[in-house]
C-alpha cells in the first residue's frame, strides 16, 4: 500500500503539467477557466492522497522512539 501511495504522489506530480488545457479558454460553470478548475481538482485530490498516506504510511514508531529516548536519557543522569 505504501508503494501505491508514493506512486500516486509521483503520478500527481506528473499530472500537474496539464498540456491538454494549456490553451483552453473554456469557462466551466459559466465563470471559471477550465485550467483553473483542473488545478482546483488537483488540490482536492492532493488532500485525498495525503489522507491515504496518513492512514497507510504513517511513521507510527516515531512516538515510541521519542518516549524510549527520553526514558533512556532520564535514567543515567538527572540534568
Amino acid at each position, binding site marked *: 500500500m505504501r508503494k501505491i501511495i508514493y506512486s500516486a504522489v509521483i503520478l500527481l506530480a506528473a499530472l500537474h503539467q496539464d498540456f491538454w488545457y494549456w490553451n483552453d479558454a473554456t469557462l466551466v460553470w459559466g465563470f471559471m477557466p477550465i485550467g483553473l478548475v483542473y488545478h482546483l481538482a488537483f488540490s482536492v485530490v492532493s488532500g485525498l492522497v495525503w489522507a491515504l*498516506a496518513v492512514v497507510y504510511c504513517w511513521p507510527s514508531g*516515531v512516538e515510541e522512539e521519542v518516549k524510549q529516548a527520553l526514558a533512556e536519557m532520564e535514567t543515567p543522569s538527572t540534568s
Partner: protein
Amino acid sequence: MITLTIIIIYLAMLLALGFISARYSRGTAADFFVASQSIGPVILLMSIFGTTMTAFAMVGSTGEAYIRGIGVYGLMASWSGLVHSAVFFLVGIKLWSYGKKYGYVTQCQFFRDRFESSGIGYLLFPILVGLVIPYLLVGILGANSVITGVTRGALPDIFPTDNPATNGSIPHWLTGLVICSVTLTYVFLGGVRAAAWANTFQTIVFMVMGCVAFYIISSKLGGMEAASQNINPERLVREGEISHLEFLTYCFVPLSVGMFPHLFQNWLSAKSAKTFRLTVIAHPIFIMIVWIPCIMIGIWATGAVIQGADGNMVRVVPETANANSVLGIMVGKLSGDVLSGLVTAGVLAAIMSSLDSQFMCIGTMFTNDIVFHIFGKDKFSDQQKVLMARTFIVLIVVISYILSLYEPRRVFTLGVWCFSGFAALFPLVFAAIYWRHVTKMGAYVCIIATTATWVYLFQQSGYGDNELYKVMGLMPVVILMAVSIISLVAVSFVTQPPSKETIEKFIPSRAS
C-alpha cells in the same frame, strides 16, 4: 472612515489576544519560545497554514494573476498543496522527533549536532535571517498596498497627495509602522503561544473574508458569469503567459517550507507526532480555499468596469496600477465600507499571521544560536533571555521596515526569491535526516555555494526588479537546487562523515 474604524477594531482585538495569552504564559523562556510544546492538531494546522499564507498568497497572487492569468495558481498553489504536505510528512515529523528527544529549539542547534560543528550554526544563522528579511518585506509591502487601496480618499485633508490613486490614503510609512508595532506587541506579550492563538484566529478570518470578498466583488460585477465575460482572454490560458518549463520548475519553490525557520519553530511546538496528521491532509485544501478566490479576483480585475461619476463605464483597476495594489483597489471600490473593512482585516490577518511567526523565530535564533552558544544558557535569567530576543527582533524589523519604504518590489516576485533561497537549502536538511554519509564539509560547501549563487542571481535580476528573470528559460531555483545538491553530494563523497555515534543518534541502522 468606517473601513478604517473596522481595521482599527481588528488590530485592537489582536492586542487583546496578546494580553489574554500573556495571562496563560508560564513566564519561562521555554514557554515564550515553543509554548512548552503543548500545541494540539487544530491550532497547529491553523498556525502552520496561517504562517505559510502571507501577503504573497493574497496580495501577491491577485496581482500576479492580473498580470499573468490563471497559470499563477498552478505555479504556486497546486504545487504547494502537494509539496508542502510531502515536506511536513517526510521532514517535519522527523525534525519534531529530534527536537523532542534532544531539546532543539532552532534549526542551527539541529545542524550543529548533526554535523558535530559549532561553526555551521554561525554560518547558517546570518543566511537564514538574511532570507527572512525579504519574507518580512513581502508582508509589510503587502499591507502597504492593501491599505493604500482601501483608504483611498478617506483622509484627504490629513494625507493629501497629487496622485488621485493615493490621495487621502494612509501612507506606507504609517501602515508599516502600525502593522509592525501591533504584531510586535502581541508577540512580545505572549510569545509563540500568542502567535499560535493569533494565527488560529487570523487564519479563520482571512479564509472567511477571502470567500466573502470573492462573493461581494462578483455581485458588484453583475455575478460570476458576467464578471468572467469581461476577463482579458489572454488571462484565461497559460499559452503566451507562462512557459511549460517555468510551470514545471516552479515545483522546487515549495520545498522552501523544509527550511523556513519559523515553520521549524511551529513544528517544535506540536504536542505529538500525531498532531501533524490534520496539517498534512488539510493543507492542500486550505490553500485552494484561499488562492482560488484571489486568482479569480485578479483575472476579473483585468476587465472589471463600474459606472464612473460622469455615468460612463470606467475600469475598476486603472491601467497604470501596479500589481500589488490590485486586491486593495478591487476591495476598496467594489465593497461597501463595512465589508471593505472586514475584507481588509482578513488580508491583514494573512499578513500578520506570518509576521508574528517570523518575528518569533528570529528572536529565538539569535538568543539560542548566538548568545547562548557563546556565553552559555545558564548565564542569563529567563527575563534576560526574552529581552535579548526582543531586542534582536526589533532590530531586524526596523531594517525591514526601512527597506519597505525605499525598495518596493512586486510582492509575488520578492516572495519567490525568498522561497527559492530556502528551497535551495532543502537538500541539506533532507540529507541530514536520511543520508548517513552526508558530511560536515559537504554541508559547509553546500551552504556557501548555494548562498553565493543566490546572491549572484538575485543581483542579476536587479534585486527582484526583473519580475520575469530566468536562467536559460528555467526558474532560478533550479540552478540553486542543482548547485546545492551537486556541492553537497560531491563533497560528502570525498570527506569524512560524522562519528558513528552521531549518525546512529539521527539515523539508526536497521539492526539496532
